[in-house]
């Protein structure tokens, strides 16, 4: 069990006049063995945080710590990520087994057969039938691909997993199965997890803590129950109000407009 900590992390894209601050001095802690749900609208900086944590983008300021130390970039990778689109995150030229085996750490020390055995064990762990290791991504359904992506992430024997919108490209029926699996694995392997989603119902189902992000900043965070049942910020309330609920209707606003929701963040600045 490990703790993932973002300390004053700022990520900037571009430079000069075109610079865009995607994450602005973000402080966020993923406690050991817990799931933190990160919610917010598209462009709020959720995925940027994830990419910074795994080293795909370099923060302009601040640090990202794993158990108090910088995230290692060599050898075993204790921090793994699962991507949104299972159609893009698997190499079309590699079998599922090869993709998973490749992520098994200790190249040179673990034999090829050892890797294959590990890949088979992991694909079994994520609930895929044994023959899946020899299949190419094109032969698998979206849900199956996402399971392979999960197995690949687990191959690194991670302490922390970042799940970036992992169900938003899936059908609802498949989404349920993948969420069940994620929850099961997280509990069994006692993983810490940063679970990013714009779907509050999904986050509520998976997360112990919830952090709400808006325009590069965390505007509210706390235990899931508290944030979702008794939100302290107007923006969180607005997010909650927007969750589609069965049996309710969305109707045209009386004045023909939809401006009664200003979209203004609490204390945020709309540039």
């Amino acid at each position, binding site marked *: 069990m490990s703790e993932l900590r973002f300390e004053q992390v700022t990520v900037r894209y571009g430079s000069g006049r075109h610079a865009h601050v995607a994450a602005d001095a973000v402080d966020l802690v993923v406690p050991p063995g817990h799931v933190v749900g990160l919610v917010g609208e598209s462009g709020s900086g959720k995925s940027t945080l994830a990419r910074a944590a795994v080293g795909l983008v370099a923060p302009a300021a601040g640090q990202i710590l794993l158990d108090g130390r910088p995230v290692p970039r060599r050898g075993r990778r204790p*921090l793994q990520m699962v991507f949104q689109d299972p159609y893009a995150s698997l190499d079309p*030229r590699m079998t599922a087994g090869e993709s998973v085996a490749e992520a098994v750490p200790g190249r040179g020390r673990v034999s090829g057969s050892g890797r294959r055995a590990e890949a088979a064990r992991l694909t079994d762990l994520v609930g895929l039938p044994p023959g899946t290791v020899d299949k190419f991504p094109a032969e698998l359904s979206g849900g199956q691909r996402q*399971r392979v992506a999960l197995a*690949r992430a687990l191959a690194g024997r991670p302490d922390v997993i970042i799940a970036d919108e992992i169900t938003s490209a899936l059908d609802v029926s498949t989404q349920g199965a993948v969420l069940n699996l994620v929850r099961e694995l997280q509990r069994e392997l006692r993983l810490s997890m940063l679970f990013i989603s714009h779907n509050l119902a999904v986050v*509520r189902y998976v997360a112990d803590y919830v952090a709400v992000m808006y325009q590069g900043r965390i505007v509210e965070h706390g235990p899931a129950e508290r944030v*979702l049942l008794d939100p302290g910020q107007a923006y969180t309330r607005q997010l909650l109000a927007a969750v589609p609920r069965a049996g309710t*209707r*969305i109707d045209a606003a009386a004045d023909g407009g939809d401006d009664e929701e200003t979209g203004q963040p609490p204390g945020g600045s709309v540039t």
Partner: protein
Amino acid sequence: MARRRQHLGRVLRTPLGISSAILLAVVLLLAVFAPVLWTSKANAIDVVSLLQGPSARHWLGTNQLGQDIFYRVLVASRLSVGLALAATAIGVGCGLVLGTAPLVLGRAAGRLITSVINVAVAFPALLLALFFAIIFGVGAQGALLAIGFASAPAFARLVRTLSASVAGLDYIAAARIAGVSRLRLLTRHVLPNIRETLIVNATMAAGDALLSFAGLSFLGLGVQAPSYDWGQLLNDGLQGIYTRPAGALAPGVAVVVAGLAFNLFGEALAVGLGVSAQNIQVGTLGKLRSALAAAATRSRAAEPPPSPSETAGAGRVLVVSNLRVSFPGNVHPVRGVSFSLDRGEAVGVVGESGSGKSLTALAVSRLLEDAAVVTADRLEFLGRDLLRTAGPGRGGAGPGTAGVMSGRELRRFLGTSAGLIFQDPMTSFNPVKRVGAQLAEVAAEHHGLSRRQAAGRAVDRLRAVRIPRPEHRARQFPHELSGGMRQRAMIGMSVMGEPALVIADEPTTALDVTVQRQVLRLLKSIQAAGDMALLFISHDITVVGQVCDRVLVMYAGKIVENLPAGGLADARHPYTRALLASVPSMETSRELPLAVIPGRPADPASLPAGCAFAPRCAFADARCREADPALVADGAGHAVACWHVDRVLADDPPPAAALTADPESAGAAPVSGERA
């Protein structure tokens, strides 16, 4: 590997492919065996017959030493082809090293190498070759290095471009996170995914190298006597071209044939591999995009408002009866769909991917590619027949077919009267035109607004879809907008006019909840204001229930349930109930596993007999597997296609138990599994 063999098979099946492959095989076989078989004959000096024309003994005559030109041309094939291949290997090798170096070395060194490549590409290859020929000295070796290095920059550029596009993909990022080294990233992920294009280009480059060698040798810069290649033979033969043309023509013909063999085979490979990259979906999207562009640009003349025909009920906007869509290969994604839409009515179509819901929408808007066969008993929009168009070649519309339009009229009619919103906003905008201008174009064309008014309305619509700073955004290009922004702009564009019908295919799937709600409200406001009908396609049954008046649930190309949106809680079809149960809500228990639908969605290419949902259904019995239930309506506007409505309503067996299956079942069960 099997896929590659398949590709090769496709290449060989075309006339160009098979003939160029045979030609290339002959050239290569000659290069391998000709020197072994005929070297002595080619080198034999016949002092009694110097510089002779063609004869029975020397088919193509002899040179100044009395050597047989025919055999010399054959034997020269090894050196000519061999040098060409070696030069190509040098070019491809250097190109690969240079082109992939930026990926392996990291950012700073990569940028430097990319600049070097860019500069090198700017030099003409022939100039480089001559330059290198002088550096490396005159001779075969010098020419080889010269031509090899001269072709390197082009390959380096190609490899750089291809690998850069692959390197941006998620699976590369995933491998990097997994700790895969840069070198391994290159060999395992990047190169396999760019090799086809490389092979095609290398094949064609070999043909070019062959010609370059012939040129250099002909100029005396290449192969030197006593060695000989085709260029050198050509040079020899040219001296006597007026008296003995065969001596010059034969090596010339050899160069042309071998060059053609390489280039044509490369061409055939390119065509074969290019076709393989396409599939039905890509074709559909491409068609859709172009059709959309066509709808936007071609419908310049404003149509007079269509008069509803007498047969249509008052206020009926759309009538679809027994709509079917098929693709070649016995694939039937839509199998007899019937529904209608009244003015101001919102109808939702729900289903999993592959249920045929999007194809239904595309068929209604007549945007399906030509490969799709669309049939229907009736397909009428505002009383006009969308299915039967009076083509220009036909004898005109007879009496009783007043609603029949020509294909062009049809497009105009749809362009002005129907608005379309698609899932992927990236493909729906012209990337080189400003967003505001694209919206304004619609208003200017269909509603005769002045440029100024149209631009004003565009900004107004952008504001209406809650795009911040719309005046600023209107002046931006589509790529400068985020995905959510683009989709909002797209929705704004579809309601620029005042369409009678808006077809929205997963319009909010890419949006987050707040924007989704705003956009849905916007749609509803405009729908209410314009008394517009809405056909709303989504996989999210909750959203459909919130937005629509009526819900059509589709499974395997059929409507399995048609019910009022308010009655979703009383859904009767097991599939509808399972869909509803599988969506987590803010009230779902966190302690229990989520309900899932076991098995996989039906495959439109191999549908089971009977009810297509039976393999996944807890209620299914022998009858379900034999006969497909028809859609039966009760008096209250609720229609279901299921043999077991009574048992479903009585919860026998309780679906909750059956649907809360183990997680394996979601993807693992075979389509025709015996899970029920």
